[in-house]
């Protein structure tokens, strides 16, 4: 019988400091995933925590994650050095609906350390650039230091991804966006202020709730739909998500 709780050991190839509290971990390859899927990273004795993969799904030499130092597991991960091993389970969850978004304009909204799954999606879009319309990335953070992946943001603009960053609230950016609202999709990933972005950007732009996808953050602990920590309404974020149509989850009590 397969043990769903059994993590795999993976070597750290490279560690890069992204901000005072965020490190980027480049791990040895061997996992294929869809942008938006997540992995549980950690070590027996310290715990596991969920992270969205941020590297390109086409990348065969490595897989990357960004880890913000916030607790026991992430303190441990931050103490590791290149050459050490991380324990990992995944990929888990559904990922973004890659077929549905094809041929559309896209508005990607995120903040702070919510960027990883969006970053992976952008790499996917760039590889298939001719299949997509106008792409906007709206990336907010409380302070400029909390903007992650700065070198990639520049790189992406060369592939006609319009990157709008702002230290403050992302909802100030609405004037700069040119999309065909009948054929546009929005993707949101990030903390609470994103709801603000929904009201102040996506609704004014005319994107309907059915075309807004949100990647939810919950306490995905078992990752296999058993432990009940990550539920919202009748959905399991670890199995049915983490990516949902906005109107699948907006009326949930939790």
């Amino acid at each position, binding site marked *: 019988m397969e043990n769903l709780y059994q993590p795999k050991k993976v070597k750290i190839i490279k560690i890069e400091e992204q901000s005072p509290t965020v490190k980027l971990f480049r791990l040895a390859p061997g996992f294929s995933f869809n942008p938006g899927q997540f992995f549980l990273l950690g070590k027996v004795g310290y*715990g596991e925590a969920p992270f969205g993969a941020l590297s390109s799904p086409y990348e065969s030499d490595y897989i990357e994650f960004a880890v913000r130092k916030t607790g026991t597991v992430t303190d441990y991960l931050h103490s590791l050095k290149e050459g050490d091993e991380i324990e990992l389970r995944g990929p888990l969850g559904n990922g973004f609906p890659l077929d549905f978004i094809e041929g559309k304009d896209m508005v990607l909204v995120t903040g702070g350390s919510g960027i990883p799954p969006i970053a992976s999606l952008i790499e996917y879009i760039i590889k298939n650039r001719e299949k997509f319309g106008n792409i906007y990335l709206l990336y907010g953070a409380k302070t400029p230091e909390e903007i992650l992946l700065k070198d990639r943001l520049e790189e992406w603009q060369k592939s006609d991804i319009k990157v709008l960053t702002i230290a403050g609230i992302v909802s100030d950016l609405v004037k700069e966006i040119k999309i065909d609202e009948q054929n546009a999709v929005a993707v949101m990933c990030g903390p609470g202020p994103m709801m603000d972005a929904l009201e102040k950007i996506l609704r004014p732009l005319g994107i309907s709730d059915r075309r807004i996808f949100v990647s939810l953050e919950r306490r995905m602990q078992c990752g296999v739909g058993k*432990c009940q*920590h990550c539920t919202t309404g*009748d959905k399991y974020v670890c199995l049915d998500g983490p990516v949902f149509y906005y109107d699948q989850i907006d009326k949930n009590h939790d």
Partner: protein
Amino acid sequence: MLIIKEQKINAFLEKLKEKFEVFDVREDKLPFKKYFLPAEERIFPVPKTPKKFVVFGLDLADLEALTQLDEIMSKPKQDFYYWQRRKQALVIGIEKDTKKLAQDYGEFFSAEGGSASGGEEVSDWSQQMRQLLLDSELLADAVAWSRDHKIWEELAEKCLGCGICTYVCPLCYCFSLEDRVGLDDKCSRCRKWDACTLPGFSKITGGHDFRPTLKERYYNWFYHKFVRAYKEYGKSQCVGCERCKNQCPAKIDILEVLKVILEDYGKSLSAEKS
């Protein structure tokens, strides 16, 4: 099917004990689930598969719960640790009402084959609860509808948030994974019972809690049993065993709660029509 006369049960158990470890659940406060999903178990390093054992004395409600728990722990994929124990277990149930046995399993044996005393009645509470459980679709609709009902406010006042109802429920299976580092530098990961009514159950890194109040957590307990479970498995995750009612230190009676909700849900439906 093997039928044993009641007078001979103890002799039969003695015989079984010669060969296997036998757990008799008839007097237990905690339900049989603890033998397959222990209150605390080490999952890493992966423990050895246990020797074959016998769990004796489940009543009909427990047997129904076991069937459901087996299904829960199989979908969408098998839970390794549950089945590591479950597959080693021989489970023996007890039906006290031989008349009912004869009705249900008449093709296998006649009523005379059962115990002579027989006929011990299921409590009135259980019977009423099981009557409600026959329409789990209605329960799902009513509990989903009841989210803004004042009863959750009232229950949050009454409930101590202790989690006992979930521990004694044969069908509550929430758990947490907890890691430890020992002084000897040995690390381990454990799985422990958790309770969705306890504070912090849905708290994420950074401190945001998706169900910060007891009212929300208590509603979620009902929501899982009667709504989410119905959508996932087509039935309520309750078998009317009465343990939660009997063990609740605040004397909360889920049957009374459901009755109130069903009545007001019915009223709201007829109000809609008129």
